[in-house]
């Protein structure tokens, strides 16, 4: 390819940079997809700060509690957001979580595999299923909504059938004893910064149990994964060529193909991404609970999509952010836990979830019009 490389130095002091600075920070902020979610999460924290500030919700233990819930949702919401930016949906996230759970538990408990091999096995299955979803969508041109809805039923059914066939039950307990000394399981099952919490406890800065150990023992693995994945996804979207391809594939499939973006490959890799994120979610929950349940992850796909939408992702693709999805997950996680600390009946949580999503979609629609408005 003959790329004419013009000298770019010559323009350094021609005034381009000066003019750039004239754009107000507010306009820059308004152009960011995560603006709504940022505002929303600030409001949520102010609300619970007032309503539940003195109830222990914001103690070390309480905070870690709602962060843990947010982080678990965030892990799948970020992957769902990236896929949505790429222009597709994955409704099989929840079923994938259940399926990954038994992929870990059955080989480890019934076939005597070392735990780490069954974890790797689960991830391998995730890559296969994600690849299958992707190739079906790309090759048939069917809406991903339909393809992954089919996968939702297939995986959930297979999870139930296989588990009952092998174990005769729908739950597989007994994993906790296998975690110790496993070379991989600690990645999904270790609280970090325990020394910090021990120290804070010894200084009487955080609540203690009756035996003198702190109530909050460390940062749960979900939070570490959540932070790492948010940073990783943001780096990919904003700073890499592949990130540009994700936006392009979701924004205009035909146009992107015409200028040489491998749209099919991008979409397939994003489907693998959601399946792998579901498996990370499953690893953390299964190892935390010590058992796999065939119904684990039910409806999680919808929560993940809701968090991504609140985070500024457009349902039509091509626009959104990982940080937005992360904030969306924090909003849902905080409200779902915070509601216990208020006098409000927890039944109202789903009402809130729905209302929040509606407001977000209306807001995002408005923003998109603003962004694409012609002069």
């Amino acid at each position: 390819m003959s790329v004419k490389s013009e000298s770019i130095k010559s323009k350094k002091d021609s005034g381009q940079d000066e003019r750039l600075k004239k754009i107000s920070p507010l306009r820059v902020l308004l152009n960011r997809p995560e603006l709504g979610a940022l505002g929303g999460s600030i409001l949520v924290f102010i609300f619970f700060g007032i309503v539940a500030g003195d109830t222990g919700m914001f103690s070390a233990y309480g905070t870690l509690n709602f962060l843990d819930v947010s982080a678990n949702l965030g892990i799948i919401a970020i992957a769902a957001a990236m896929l949505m930016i790429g222009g597709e949906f994955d409704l099989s996230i929840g079923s994938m979580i259940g399926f990954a759970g038994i992929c870990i538990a059955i080989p480890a408990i019934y076939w005597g595999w070392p735990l780490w091999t069954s974890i790797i096995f689960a991830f391998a299955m995730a890559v296969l299923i994600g690849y299958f979803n992707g190739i079906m969508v790309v090759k048939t041109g069917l809406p991903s909504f339909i393809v992954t809805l089919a996968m939702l039923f297939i995986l959930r059914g297979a999870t139930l059938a296989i588990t009952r066939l092998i174990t005769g039950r729908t739950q597989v307990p007994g994993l906790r004893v296998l975690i110790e000394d496993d070379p991989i399981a600690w990645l999904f099952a270790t609280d970090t910064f325990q020394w910090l919490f021990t120290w804070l406890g010894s200084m009487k800065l955080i609540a203690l149990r009756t035996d003198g150990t702190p109530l909050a023992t460390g940062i749960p693995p979900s939070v570490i994964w959540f932070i790492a994945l948010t940073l990783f996804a943001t780096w990919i979207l904003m700073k890499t060529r592949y990130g540009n391809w994700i936006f392009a594939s979701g924004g205009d499939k035909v146009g992107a193909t015409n200028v040489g973006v491998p749209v099919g490959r991008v979409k397939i890799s994003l489907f693998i991404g959601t399946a792998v994120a579901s498996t990370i979610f499953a690893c953390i929950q299964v190892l935390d609970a010590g058992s796999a349940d065939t119904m684990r992850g039910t409806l999680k796909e919808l929560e993940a999509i809701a968090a991504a939408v609140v985070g500024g992702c457009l349902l039509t693709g091509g626009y959104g952010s990982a940080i937005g999805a992360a904030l969306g997950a924090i909003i849902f996680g905080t409200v779902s836990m915070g509601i216990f600390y208020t006098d409000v009946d927890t039944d109202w949580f789903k009402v809130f979830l729905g209302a929040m999503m509606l407001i977000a979609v209306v807001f995002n629609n408005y923003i998109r019009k603003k962004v694409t408005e012609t002069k």
Partner: protein
Amino acid sequence: MSEYLVQFNNISKFFGKVIALKDVTMKLKKGEIMCLLGDNGAGKSTLIKTLAGVHKPDEGEIIFEDQKIVFDSPRDALDIGIGTVYQDLALVSLMSVTRNFFMGREPQKGLPFFKTFDIEKANTIAAERMGQIGIDVRDPSQAVGTMSGGERQCLAISRAIYFGAKVLVLDEPTSALGVHQASMVLKYIVKAASQGLAVILITHNVHHAYPVGNSFTVLNRGKSMGTFQKKDISREKLLSMMAGGEELDKLEVELKEMDRIENN
């Protein structure tokens, strides 16, 4: 070396029993703007896709810089230097000017496996290139959706040139534009040609084509009605050669007839 940069000799394309193109021949020199005129259904789209490597011609040959070329994919056409700007422009309106400009061919920096999209370099080049056409992109990170239709067209053309196009194939670049915007795009096309590119301008608008074209090929029902140098043909003649011409003449006669009857 022949005087022509690119030659399309006796191109034919069939879809089953349908003859979409039959024996179409076009030859372009460097710096030449050839306008390809034709009414709807004349085979313009098929011809464009054949030039761009989307379709393989069933008969005929493409000769580029004295070498016979066979395209297996649009990528091949791009690689040898035939840059096609489709009517939909292949721009994503939600993405920034820079991200669109380098879509699919992003400059990278950094170590292997940790390569990042060199957005600063991309911003500088995009702003500079747009500046050269006289479009002041104050902020290359602004969304393409905020640009006018003419500016978008120019962005798409500028991108094709930057990525090494020697032959520009432009599909109806002015059809969706107002007079002012269209003249801005046409001016840019002339400028591009004056820098040594060969341009194939596909349009059904003779009024846009005539002022900028050096030669004109008229396509009618899949067949070329010939290529004419500007000095050999008038605007009116061109117009009537396109399928619409005779129809319009007939319409005029009919209208006059109606007028006469009413006045009596």
